[in-house]
C-alpha cells in the first residue's frame, strides 16, 4: 500500500491521527496532516483505509498493490 495526502485540501480534523497515529500526524500550528509513513506495514492497512474514508476532506489517497 502506498499512501499520499493532499495537504492543500486538508481541513485539520485530525481523524486520521486518531485512527492511525503511526501513519499520520498534524502540524502543530494549523493542524494540517503530516504523512509519517507512506508505505505502512500490513497490520496498519485497516486503520489507514478507515482514515481515508472518514477524512472529511477526502485528502488521503491509497494505491493498493
Amino acid at each position: 500500500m502506498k499512501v499520499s495526502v493532499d495537504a492543500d485540501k486538508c481541513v485539520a480534523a485530525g481523524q486520521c491521527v486518531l485512527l492511525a497515529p503511526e501513519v499520520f500526524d498534524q502540524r502543530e500550528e494549523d493542524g494540517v496532516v503530516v504523512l509519517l509513513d507512506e508505505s505502512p506495514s500490513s497490520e496498519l492497512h485497516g486503520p489507514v483505509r478507515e482514515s481515508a474514508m472518514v477524512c472529511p476532506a477526502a485528502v488521503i489517497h491509497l494505491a493498493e498493490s
Partner: protein
Amino acid sequence: MKRVVIVGASISGLATAEALRRNGHEGPIALVGAEPEAPYDRPPLSKQVLTGQWEPKELDLRSPAELDALELDLRLGVRATGLDISRRTVSLGDGATLDYDALVVATGVRARRLPGTERIIGVHTLRTLSDALALKERLCPGRRLVIVGAGFVGAEVAAAAHGLGVEVTLLEAGPVPLALAVGEAAGRFLTDVHHEHGVLVRVGASVREVVQERGQVTGVRLADGAVLPADDVLVAIGSIANTEWLADSGLSVQDGLVCDEYSAAAPGVYGVGDVARWHNPLFDTAMRVEHRTNAAEQGMAVARNLLNPEARRPFAPVPYFWSDQYDVKVQAYGHLRDHDEALVLETTTEGPQLLVAYRKADRLVGVLAAGASPKILRAWRAVIADRAPWAAALNRTNAA
C-alpha cells in the same frame, strides 16, 4: 446475505458500499442516488466552491476507475419512491423495483425553504452542487446578499461571499446565532468574527416575506416592516430529512428514520448519515447528526454489522464537526446540542480564540474550539469517549 440496496449515493451510502466490498461482500450492491452526479463531497459547497478555489471536479469522492472497481449497480438521477418491507422491495421513480436482502437508507436531508419563494429568481438554498453553482454565479462584487439564518451554512456562505466583495447581511431570528447548537458564548464569539470582517449580523430578525418584482427578488421584509434590499437571498434555515418515500413502509419516522443502537430500523433495514436518528449509547440518547465524518463512520459501522449479524456492535461515536469562517476554524467533539452548561475555559495562547466545555447532567458531553490549534481537542475527545464525570474531566484536561 445476498443483495444489498443502498438508497442515497452521497458519502454515507458510498462508505457503506466500500466497506461492504472491503469486508468481503461479493453479492450485488445497488447504489441509488437522486442527484445525477457521481458521489461528491458536500462540505466544500459552502466554502471552496463558492469562492471559486475549487472546480466541481475536485469534489468527486472517487475516480470513475475506483467506482468501477466496486462493481456497483449504480443508478444515478433516480429517486426511491416507496418501500415494502414485507416483500423487501424498493420502488424507484423510473418505474424499476429493486429486491433486497438488506436495505441501507442513506437519503440524507434537503434544505428547508421559505414557503412561497421557490419560484422567485435570486432566492437560493444550499445543499447540492447545482445549488452551489447557481449561487456562485450570482456572487459578484457590489451585489447585496441577505442570508436568512445564521447557522453554520449561513455563516460559511457569509464569509465566502464577503471575501468575493459581496455586501452581506446575515439574519438571525433568535438573540444569539447558533445558541441552540453550540451555546451562547460560542455563538457570540462567531458573531464578533463576522462583525470584525464587516459582515452585518442582525439578531432578533424574523422574516415576514421575501419581496419581489416581476419574479426577481428585491429584498426581505422583516417582522417590524423594515425592508432590506437584496439582489440575492439565501435561505439557510435548516434541513428536512428525506423520509417521504418511507411514509407507507411502516418504519418509524420522527425527524429522520428511527434506528436502534446498531443503526437498524427493522430486520435487514439500516439507516446511515444525515437521515438516521439512531440511539447513541455513548450519550444514551437518540441523535441525528448532519456532519461529514459521522456519515462515513456510520456507513462503515453498518457494513460491518450487516456482514456480521451474530456479532453486531453498537454505533457509539463521539461526533465531530468543523466549520471554516474567514480565517477562523471551529472544531467540536461530542453532543453539544442539549447541553445544560457551556463553560468557557481559559486559554493560554495569544489571539482571538475560544475553548468551551459542555456539560449535560454531571458529564462532560462536548468541547468546542475556535481559532485554536486543532490538536488541543484530541485530548478532550478521549475524555468524552471515557464518559468522564464533569469535575474529573475538567481536572484531567487541565492537567493535559
